């Protein structure tokens, strides 16, 4: 193995700038040169993947775009209705409620669910012995099938004084809470379960990212007399910035599509206090059990996808600017 003579940063720069260096007259690309250069075998090699990807990934997306402009029950011939489905969805009084609820869920999940895994990962990375055990314990909720987790948490959220949480509260003299049975507490309860269910996955990612932080930085900080808090603030978090940005946008997209918890715990109740956009989409498509509103369901899906797409674009633009500044 040979060692490179150049510093790595320069090597990267040189590689990323093909125009630098001795200029050679570029040959004109013709189909013949493309074939000779291995273009055909590349295309043939790519073809199966493009085919499978096109059929299973992109054709449903295109199909749902088409369906959002149709009135169809998928049995009798579909009729083209233009933007009527979009207009119907936008006129639905439940939509506003669903959007507000989804934002509420996302906000709560962000406030409680986002910092918690970071905190736990940082703490766990400080543990010297039994790190594997802690990681396994933290990851366990992710392994439990979501439906089982919901069944389990139903016992925790039991609103009678004998419910698990209410019993615990009873020990310290707090009266039983309604949990899922009241419009005020239902959504925070769902966030609690969702945070529990998802934290393990994030913790593992943060733990892996923490491993890539060069120990010299901590050593240098210690030499400068930094406290633990200083080290976290000035070394760990800046080093994790890239991962944090990605995790944040993934969490925003994930929470905007929350479905399982409200569907299984409350069905959107009580009094529509936990109906979310995705649950509303589900209800359009399946509530009347005859699939009469597939068009409206896909119209709302398309709108959600567009909003999330714009959000992701803005987010990456802004965070790119931050990381460059």
């Amino acid at each position: 193995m040979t060692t490179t003579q150049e510093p790595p940063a320069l090597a990267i720069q040189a590689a990323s700038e093909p125009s630098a260096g001795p200029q050679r007259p570029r040959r004109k690309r013709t189909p013949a040169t493309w074939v000779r250069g291995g273009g055909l075998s590349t295309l043939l090699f790519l073809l199966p993947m493009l085919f499978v990807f096109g059929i299973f990934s992109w054709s449903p997306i295109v199909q749902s775009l088409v369906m959002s402009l149709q009135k169809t029950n998928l049995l009798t011939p579909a009729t083209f209705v233009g933007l009527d489905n979009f207009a119907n969805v936008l006129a639905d009084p439940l939509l506003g409620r669903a959007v507000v609820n989804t934002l509420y869920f996302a906000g709560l999940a962000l406030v409680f669910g986002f910092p918690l895994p970071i905190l736990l990962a940082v703490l766990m990375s400080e543990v010297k012995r039994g790190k594997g055990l802690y990681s396994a314990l933290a990851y366990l909720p992710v392994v439990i099938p979501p439906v089982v987790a919901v069944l389990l948490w139903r016992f925790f959220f039991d609103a009678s004084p004998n419910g698990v949480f209410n019993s615990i509260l009873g020990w310290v003299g707090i009266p039983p809470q309604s949990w899922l049975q009241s419009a005020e507490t239902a959504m925070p309860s769902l966030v609690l379960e969702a945070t529990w269910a998802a934290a393990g996955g994030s913790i593992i990612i943060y733990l892996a990212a923490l491993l890539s932080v060069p120990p010299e930085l901590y050593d240098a900080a210690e030499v400068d007399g930094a406290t633990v808090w200083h080290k976290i603030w000035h070394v760990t978090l800046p080093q994790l910035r890239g991962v944090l940005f990605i995790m944040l946008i993934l969490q925003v997209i994930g929470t905007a599509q929350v479905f399982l918890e409200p569907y299984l715990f409350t069905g959107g109740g009580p009094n529509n206090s936990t109906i979310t956009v995705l649950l509303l989409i589900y209800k359009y498509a399946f509530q009347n059990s005859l699939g009469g509103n597939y068009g409206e369901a896909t119209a709302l899906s398309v709108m959600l996808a567009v909003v999330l797409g714009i959000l992701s674009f803005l987010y990456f633009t802004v965070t790119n600017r931050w990381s460059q500044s």
Partner: protein
Amino acid sequence: MKSPGKVALAGFSALAIAATLAGCSAGGGSGKLELRVGTFPAGADPAAYEAFEKQEADFEKANPTIDVIGEEYEWKGPTFAVQLAGGSLPDVFTVPFTEAKTLLENGQLADVTKQVEDLGYADKFNPVILEGVQDNDGKIYGFPRQAYAMGLHYNRELFTAAGLDPDKPPTTWDEVRAAAKTISEKTGKAGFATMTFNNTGGWQLTAQTVARGGRTQVDNGDGTYTETIDNEGTKAALQFLHELRWEDNSMGSNFLLDWGTINQEFAAGNVGMYTGGSDVYTALVRDFSTEPDIYGLAVIPNEGDDPGTLGGGDIAVVSPTATEEEKEAGAKWIDYYYMQRLLDEKAAKFDAKTLADSDQAVGTPVLPVLDPETEEQRVGWIEKYINVPRDQMTSFIDNIGTQLPVGEPKGKTQEIYALLDAVVQAVLTDEDADIDALLEQANKDAQAILDAK
């Protein structure tokens, strides 16, 4: 770099995938007409399969040109829509009454008027029930095969524990309230519970409305409907729930219950009384392990002007994609499998014996889909196989005949039930819920659903 090996590999993988995707082929034929019939719920008892085989063989002997293929099928809202759209439904299947009107309006059911008339019992059906499967021109789109009336289910054990007489269930709503309060105070369990979500809240509110003489929808007879959700019956029903919940605290602590969970709670002994279909005993014992001894059934109390009991049930239908030949065969099977057990002594006894042999309920009180005389005759035939504790259901059996059966609202039934779920939930979870305002809003929203094209 170009390599013949790479090109060959790429070409091969493309071919392999294309071949896999194209790997569907048409099944071979035996020369007979294959009729796929939905009949077993998933995970059905082996005895059910055995019984089906006997009936299948018997039918095929009489109809040598038809090959019946039994398939797993159970009507479930969301999966039904997908099956329907995906074309994976059997040729013959069953759907609830509430779906019939929308399905037939959507062209999703086959017209079987000719077949029903040919079989000669079109005029034997209970007219209230038959109307549910007819369009405005009187064409018939299915065979009503079983029906139920709404009843008041009660836990005899909790009645006894609370010092109430389990043989004298409440007959008025005031008595229901008093009993619920006593049960709650004496046992700590919910005296009365009601379903609230997955469209069941609206369903039960409608039932409790009808029992007080109210109606939530008027059929204008021209394919349009007018909502009347803000009627006195519905108001009284919600007021009743509000009082039980907030004044008496006799509804326990769980207000998110649907058909499955309320039955589960009842089976676990946590619910004193609830309203629901009279035929639920079969599911309570078979699927929820309810002890037969604790079960009691009474009629739902009727009060006010023109009260009644909400009926429901299911109909056997033929797939709209069936050919004329398959339709004929489907009607023959429905007649043999579902209808003859109501009409013919031999078939009725065979059916009852088969069910009894596999420990399934025989003799659960139902609402006759045919005329009362035919139903009485059937009960007489199967008397010796009856295994449900009918003496614990006497209050229902003795009085159901005097109650007026009322069909479920037909316009956008499930969507409006879903809308009413939120109203019931609001009353049970918000002490300050304004019932009048809730009903006014629900009425407006429901009418908008009906008017939407």
